[in-house]
């Protein structure tokens, strides 16, 4: 095992190790003493944004939307049956998801971890795609697509993303359309598999009351030493400005649902700097729009928003944007009010007391997360994909100064880089 490195946050009693297997696979191991639950996640850096690429033999390939997601479904199938049948013997709970920039497969269990790890690794490393089983999956995924087509929350979010970005591949639908997936063949899927599932494009994260040896011993069984393929970073051209300032759709909803997105100006950070940015943005979001903010209080008390309200930060090494979302009959007023409070922050500076409270709160919630196996492997994988370390959030949080936040807010919140999407009620 190469490049063994330990990352720790002793003040909160948490640490994990990272090493690289001879195959090029990156492995994270987090020991969680006295925990019953164990979790493992393996993830490929292959998401909906990777739609056009070159194969090893020089062939240029462009795949339909929804390909990474379709492959995710198919890797649950093997020569000897469905992965769920194997997990079922131990009672493990398994699942997978595909996002813009990755495909992740995982399980949680309380017992017989080794057997489950075998299932996870063997299915992800042994694709079994036939005309018949690819055809069979189309009906299932078509229903998944239609389910999302009727979900106003997802539609509102995605409409906003498409308004915010002009050329970025994040505009591409993760699951694709029904037509997209009906055009898929085993050959296209296998091209993607060969291109993106080589060990040096994969990461495995394990957490629980386990022995690291157990994990190490498995790796040689599934991953061979081979050519190290270095993934090139995607070249993405994206103008600074939002493509649209306002977009809308009509659906069967009881009240308009809004998503206000803010596109970040800066997307070139990695490592500790990226963790620090993440912590800064999380603090800013709570400071400006969270339940403790004057913005929330004003709109809630005026009846412009209700309890269905949330704000969050989406980031990777390819994109970075904030979202505030809720229900309102006056989305334009929500937006105007958001910018009033952003302006006020620039004019009056930061309330130091509130900043410290929010930082304390964030610290507590990260410590709580560090105590649970599944959220931890998920965070480790997510951060790794962005080029940062999960545990850095604690150190980064403590380094943040009030003036950093003002600078960050200027890069993040600008009317030219904002887009409001509204799902309006359809008249029945």
């Amino acid at each position, binding site marked *: 095992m190469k490049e063994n490195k330990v990352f720790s946050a002793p003040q*909160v*009693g948490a640490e994990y190790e990272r090493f690289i297997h001879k195959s090029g696979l990156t492995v994270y191991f987090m020991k969680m003493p*006295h*925990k*019953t*639950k164990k979790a493992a996640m393996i993830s490929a850096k292959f998401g909906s944004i990777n739609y056009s690429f070159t194969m090893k033999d020089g062939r240029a390939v462009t795949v339909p939307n929804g390909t990474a997601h379709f492959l995710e479904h198919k890797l649950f199938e093997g020569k000897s049956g*469905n992965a*769920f*049948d194997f*997990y*079922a*013997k*131990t*009672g493990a*709970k*398994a*699942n997978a998801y595909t996002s813009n920039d990755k495909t992740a497969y995982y399980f*949680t269990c*309380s*017992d017989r971890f080794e057997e489950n790890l075998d299932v996870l690794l063997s299915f992800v490393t042994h694709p079994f795609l036939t005309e018949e089983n690819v055809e*069979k999956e189309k*009906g*299932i995924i078509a*229903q*998944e697509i*239609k*389910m999302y*087509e*009727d*979900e106003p*929350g997802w539609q509102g979010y995605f409409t906003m993303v498409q308004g915010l970005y002009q050329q970025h591949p994040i505009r591409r639908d993760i699951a694709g359309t029904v037509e997209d997936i009906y055009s898929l063949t085993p050959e296209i899927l296998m091209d993607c598999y060969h291109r993106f599932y080589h060990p040096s494009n994969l990461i495995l994260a394990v957490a629980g009351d386990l022995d690291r040896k157990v994990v190490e011993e498995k790796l040689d069984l599934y991953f061979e030493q081979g050519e190290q393929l270095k993934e090139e970073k995607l070249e993405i051209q994206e103008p600074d400005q939002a493509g649209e300032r306002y977009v809308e759709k009509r659906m*069967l909803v*009881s*009240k308009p649902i809004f998503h206000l997105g803010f596109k970040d100006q800066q997307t070139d950070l990695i490592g500790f700097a990226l963790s620090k940015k993440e912590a800064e943005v999380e603090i800013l979001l*709570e400071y400006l729009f969270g*339940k*403790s*903010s*004057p913005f929330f*209080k004003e709109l*809630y008390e005026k*009846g412009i928003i*209700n*309890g*269905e309200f949330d704000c969050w930060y989406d980031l990777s090494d390819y994109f970075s944007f904030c979202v505030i979302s809720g*229900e309102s009959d006056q989305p334009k007023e929500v937006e105007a009010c958001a910018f009033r409070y952003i302006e006020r922050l620039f004019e009056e500076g930061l309330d130091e007391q509130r900043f410290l409270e929010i930082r*304390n*709160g*964030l*610290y*507590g*919630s990260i*410590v*709580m997360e*560090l*105590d*649970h*196996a599944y959220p931890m492997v998920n965070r480790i994988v997510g951060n790794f994909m962005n080029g940062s370390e999960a545990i850095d959030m604690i150190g980064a949080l403590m380094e943040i100064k009030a003036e950093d936040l003002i600078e960050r807010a200027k890069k993040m919140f600008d009317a030219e880089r904002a887009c409001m999407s509204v799902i309006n009620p*359809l008249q*029945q």
Partner: protein
Amino acid sequence: MELLQQMPCKGVIYNYGFADHFKTGYLSVDFFMPLTKENATGMSLLAGMLCRGCKKYPGMDLISRYLAKNYGASLSVTASKAGELEILTFAFSFLDREYTIDGEDVRRAMIALFRELVFAPLAENGAFRSDYMEQEKSNLIDKITGIFNDKRVYALEQCKSLMCENEAFGIGEYGDIELVKAYNEKSLYDYFRKLLDEAWVMVNYVGKERELFMDALTEGLSPRTTEMPSTQVVEFSGKVREIVDPLDLNQSKLTLGFRLGKAALEKPMACRLFNVLYGGSATSKLFMNVRERLSLCYYCSSRLDRLKNVMFVASGIEAEKYEQARNEIEHQLKNVAQGEFTQEEMDNAKAYLIDSFRSFYDNESALASMMITGTLHGKVCLPEEEIQAVQAVTREDLVAVAREVQLDTVYFLKGVHHEGE
């Protein structure tokens, strides 16, 4: 882990779950009333009103700041239903003092907050603040009408309310819009006083502290004069109802409501295992057949309400596949009732349930709800005792449960496309 249950006076129950392996603590206070429109509406309104502020922290922002200061502790105040009970829950989750920077005991800060919210609310002269009252009424109406936005939830709620339209179970957990409108700041306050006098109360803690501290939360509550509300189990009427609702959707939602029988009540663990085997897991009969074999859907699963002794199956399908999907769902039930499942399928279902129980040890809120539901069902068990009960279930038990399951109501939210849109 150790459990301790106390009943300091009639209708007030303390559940302690002492466990040393958490970095966090979990504390909840639950108020129980019979599920009626009045209670569901009143408790849902109170869930909104009581977290708007109290005399000491007269605003949501101030409460949020207090929580943030206390290491990002979380508070949720919710109204929900289980069987024919309506439950108002105050739930706190917080860092254990071993991990706070200066060793502060956040648990005490949460006890203090609960006391302020419930015993010193924002009220004067026997009435809540009228401006907050109007806002919370409007928010609750949004919440009730907003059930429609998630068609999966909407279809399930429609099925429940149609199947049990003459039973309390048919009442929605957030209550009734007309009753929301009828409440005012005075009548809700009167209702709140009545709730504090009448509702059964459970206080639940999971965490490291060994101190018996719950008197500090319930001080001022007198013994209850009524019994813990119960749920009426109703037998199948003998006639299956079918309701089709057309709506402009891409996907149709098929929901089936079933009544369980006596065996399910007599053998509760067999009933839970039956649900896992039939439709409650990714290797269940429904998942493997309706989804994997026939490719009819992305999801098809079953869930129980154990107090009410009913089960619901929900799936999202193409409108024209209605017959095929419904037949397969019923056919798989018949298979289980006829004992047509392998030893392996039964072992897998057991492994699934055992893993779930074991995983409770890492989840404070799951342990707390285990203590609460255990109390409601008459016996609180540790996960390992539940596991023994799972292991003891036989093939005959499963068949006995499945044979008595009766389809009662089919609710089909049928996706249709309106021309010109």
